[in-house]
C-alpha cells in the first residue's frame, strides 16, 4: 500500500483543492496516469500517479482543500492483496481527511473575520488553532474570499520570486547573437511543412537551450539543502502568459531528445493546455531550467529571476535588425540578446559563459537541432 499525496506543484504551493477524481476505488492505474484534478493558484492541474497499482481507497472528497502532503488516496501495489493491512506509514485515518480546526479557532475566525480556507494549521496534527487564525488576521486583510484567481496567482508568483531573490545569489550574463541565418533556414524549412506544422522561432531557441544544457549540465537541475541535484532529463520550463493575466512555466519534457517538429507540436499543446487550465502535475514540478521569451513585448533584453528550486533561467529579447559587423563589413542583420540568470551557488561564471556560448553555437547550426 502506498499513500497518494497532494503534491507540491511549485515552490510556493501550500494547499490545493481537489476538484475531481478521474479514477474510482478498484481502478487499476499505471505510472503517469491522471487520477485527479487539483485546483491551485496556477489553475486546475491534472495529477499523475507515480506507482502502478489499484486504487484502494479515496481519502479526500472533491471540494476539500488540503495542505500539500495530505494523503489523498491509498494505492495498493500490484502484488498486494485487497484489504491487506496498511503499512505503518499509512497510519490509521480511514475516514476522509478534513481540515482540523479547533473550536476556539472557529470562534476566533468568526470574530476576526478570517476565512479558514486560507489558514494553514500548525497545531497538533496540522489542526488550525487560535494562534494560526490570529497569525492570519495579523497578516492583514487577506485576499478576500471573492479574490480572483489572478490575485491568487499574483500572490503565488510573488512568494516564489521573493524567495528566489532572498535565497538565490543570481549571476547574470548576456550575449547578442546574430540569428539571420537560422531564421532564414527556418523560413525555408517551414515552406516544406504544412501550415499547421510550421515552426515558430521559439522552437529553435528551445532546442538550442536543450542541447546546450546537455553540454553544460551544471545549469540543468535543482538546488536543495544538500546542494545541486542534476536534472533527470532536460525538462525546459516554458514561461507562458495566460490570457487572464498571470504566468505559468510548465515543463516541456526531454526537449533534447525531441525533433524540432515534436518539440514544436508539444509546445503548442503545452501552451493550449496551460491556457485551458489542464496542466499535469509532473509538468508543474519537474522543470530543470526555464526559458522565458519577452521579445514579443518589444524589449531588447531581459534578465529573469530564477524559479526555485531551479538554478538557471534563460531570457530571450526581441529579434531586431541592427547594423552588424560581418567579416569586416557592416551589414543589416537580425540579432537577439540572450541572457542567462544562474544560481551562483550551483553555477560559476565560466560554466554560465560556456552555456551561453553553447546556445549560440547550437543556434548557428539549425539543421542539426
Amino acid at each position, binding site marked *: 500500500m502506498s499513500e497518494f499525496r497532494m503534491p507540491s506543484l511549485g515552490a510556493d504551493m501550500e494547499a490545493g483543492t481537489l476538484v475531481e477524481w478521474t479514477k474510482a476505488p478498484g481502478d487499476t492505474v499505471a505510472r503517469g496516469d491522471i487520477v485527479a484534478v487539483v485546483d491551485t493558484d496556477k489553475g486546475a492541474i491534472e495529477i499523475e500517479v507515480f506507482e502502478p497499482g489499484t486504487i484502494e481507497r479515496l481519502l479526500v472528497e472533491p471540494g476539500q482543500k488540503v495542505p500539500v502532503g495530505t494523503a489523498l488516496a491509498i494505492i495498493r501495489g500490484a502484488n498486494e492483496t485487497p484489504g491487506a493491512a496498511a503499512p505503518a506509514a499509512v497510519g490509521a485515518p480511514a475516514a476522509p481527511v478534513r481540515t482540523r480546526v479547533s473550536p*476556539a479557532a472557529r470562534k476566533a475566525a468568526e470574530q476576526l473575520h478570517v476565512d479558514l480556507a486560507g489558514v494553514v494549521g500548525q497545531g*497538533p496534527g496540522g489542526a488550525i488553532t487560535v*494562534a494560526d487564525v490570529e497569525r492570519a488576521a495579523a497578516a492583514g486583510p487577506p485576499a478576500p474570499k471573492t479574490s480572483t484567481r489572478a490575485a491568487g496567482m499574483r500572490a503565488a508568483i510573488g512568494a516564489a520570486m521573493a524567495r528566489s531573490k532572498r535565497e538565490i545569489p543570481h549571476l547574470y550574463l548576456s550575449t547578442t547573437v546574430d540569428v539571420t541565418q537560422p531564421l532564414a533556414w527556418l523560413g525555408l524549412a517551414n515552406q516544406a511543412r504544412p501550415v499547421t506544422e510550421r515552426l515558430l522561432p521559439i522552437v529553435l531557441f528551445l532546442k538550442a537551450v536543450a542541447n546546450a544544457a546537455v553540454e553544460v549540465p551544471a545549469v540543468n537541475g535543482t538546488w536543495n539543502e544538500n546542494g545541486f541535484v542534476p536534472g533527470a532529463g532536460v525538462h525546459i520550463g516554458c514561461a507562458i502568459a495566460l490570457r487572464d493575466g498571470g504566468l505559468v512555466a510548465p515543463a516541456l519534457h526531454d526537449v533534447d531528445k525531441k525533433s524540432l517538429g515534436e518539440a514544436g507540436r508539444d509546445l503548442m499543446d503545452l501552451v493550449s493546455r496551460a491556457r485551458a487550465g489542464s496542466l499535469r502535475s509532473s509538468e508543474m514540478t519537474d522543470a530543470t531550467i526555464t526559458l522565458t521569451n519577452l521579445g514579443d513585448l518589444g524589449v531588447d533584453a531581459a534578465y529573469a529571476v530564477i524559479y526555485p528550486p531551479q538554478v538557471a533561467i534563460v531570457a530571450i529579447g526581441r529579434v531586431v535588425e541592427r547594423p552588424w559587423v560581418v567579416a569586416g563589413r557592416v551589414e543589416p542583420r537580425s540579432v537577439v540578446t540572450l541572457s542567462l540568470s544562474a544560481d551562483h551557488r550551483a553555477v560559476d561564471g565560466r560554466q554560465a559563459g560556456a552555456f551561453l556560448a553553447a546556445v549560440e553555437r547550437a543556434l548557428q547550426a539549425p539543421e542539426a537541432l
Partner: protein
Amino acid sequence: MANGPTRRITYRDAMREAIREALTRDPRVFLMGEDVGRYGGAYAVSKGLLAEFGPERIRDTPLSESTFVGAGIGAALGGSRPIVEVMTVNFSLLALDQIVNTAATIRHMSGGQFSVPVVIRMATGAGRQLAAQHAHSLEGWLAHVPGLRIVEPATIEDARGMLWTALQDPDPVLIFEHQTLYNLEGDLPADAGPVDIDRAVVRRHGGDVTVITYGAMLYKSLAAAATLAADGVECEVIDLRTLRPLDMNTIFESVRRTRRVAIVDEGWRSGGLSAEIAARLAESAFYDLDAPIARVCSAEVPIPYPKHLEDAAVPQAAAIVDAVRALLPAPAPR
C-alpha cells in the same frame, strides 16, 4: 505563600493539629476508627491524642467498617460531630452502604428534617508499595454520589484547615488524604486557620495550558510544569481540592485563557473523575478549546506491589510533560 511568620510542619502533624483543635473547640467532636487510639492511627495521625483527650473522645473500633461508619452516622444524627477514620479508601467499600445509602440520603429522605454532619477521613492513593487492596484512588466513585462532599487536601495548609471547615458542614464530608503526603514537610503560617472547601485554587499561574489535578498528583503536575517552563511552556496548575461539588468556574476561567487542558488524575480513566471534568468542559467550554482535552490517568490495572510496576501504573511527571506537549503546536522545523 504566607507573608507572616511560619513554622515547619509535616502534613501528618498538620492533620493531627486540626483534629486536636476540633476536639478542643467543640465538645461534640470525637474521633473513632481502627487503631486510632492506642496505636495512634495507621498513619500515626492520631498519635498522642488518646492520652490527651481520653477514650471517650478517641475511640478504637472493631475491625468492621460498616459498623463504625454506621455508628458515626448515628452519632451525627444524635447531635455529635464525629470524625470517623477509615484506614484506606479500599476498606471504605465495606461501609459503602452506610455512606451512600444512609449518610448521603437522610437529608433528602427526611424532607430536610435530619442532616448527618459526619466527617469521614480516609487514606488514598499509591506510592508506598501497599499493593492493590490498599492503594487505589476511588475518590471518583464517591464523588459520584449526591449528598456527599468530597475534599482532598494536597497542601500542608489545606491539611491543617479543611477539617474544621468540614465539621461546620451540616452534611457528610469525606476527606481523602494521600498516603504519600503524610511525610510532606512545609511552612505553615502561624495564623493558619480554616480553609475554604468550596473553591479550587490555582497553584501555578500560566497562560499556555491548564493542568487540572488534585492530591499527590499536584506535585507531579508542578514538577512537569517546571520542566515545561524551561522550554517556555507556561502551565496553569489548578488544585481541585474539592472533588464534589466541582468548582467548574475556576476551571472555566482558566481554560478560557489557555484554551488547552490536561487533566491529571491518579484514578482510572474509564468513568473516572477526569471523565467527568472532560465532559463538563466539552459541554460548557467547547468553543474555548484549541486542542482536544488530554487526560493522564493511572493504568487500568490493580495497583501493583513492585516499586517499578507501581511507578509505571500511576501518572509520572514525564507523562504529564508529554501530554501537555501533545496539545501544543509542533515546534517550528529548524
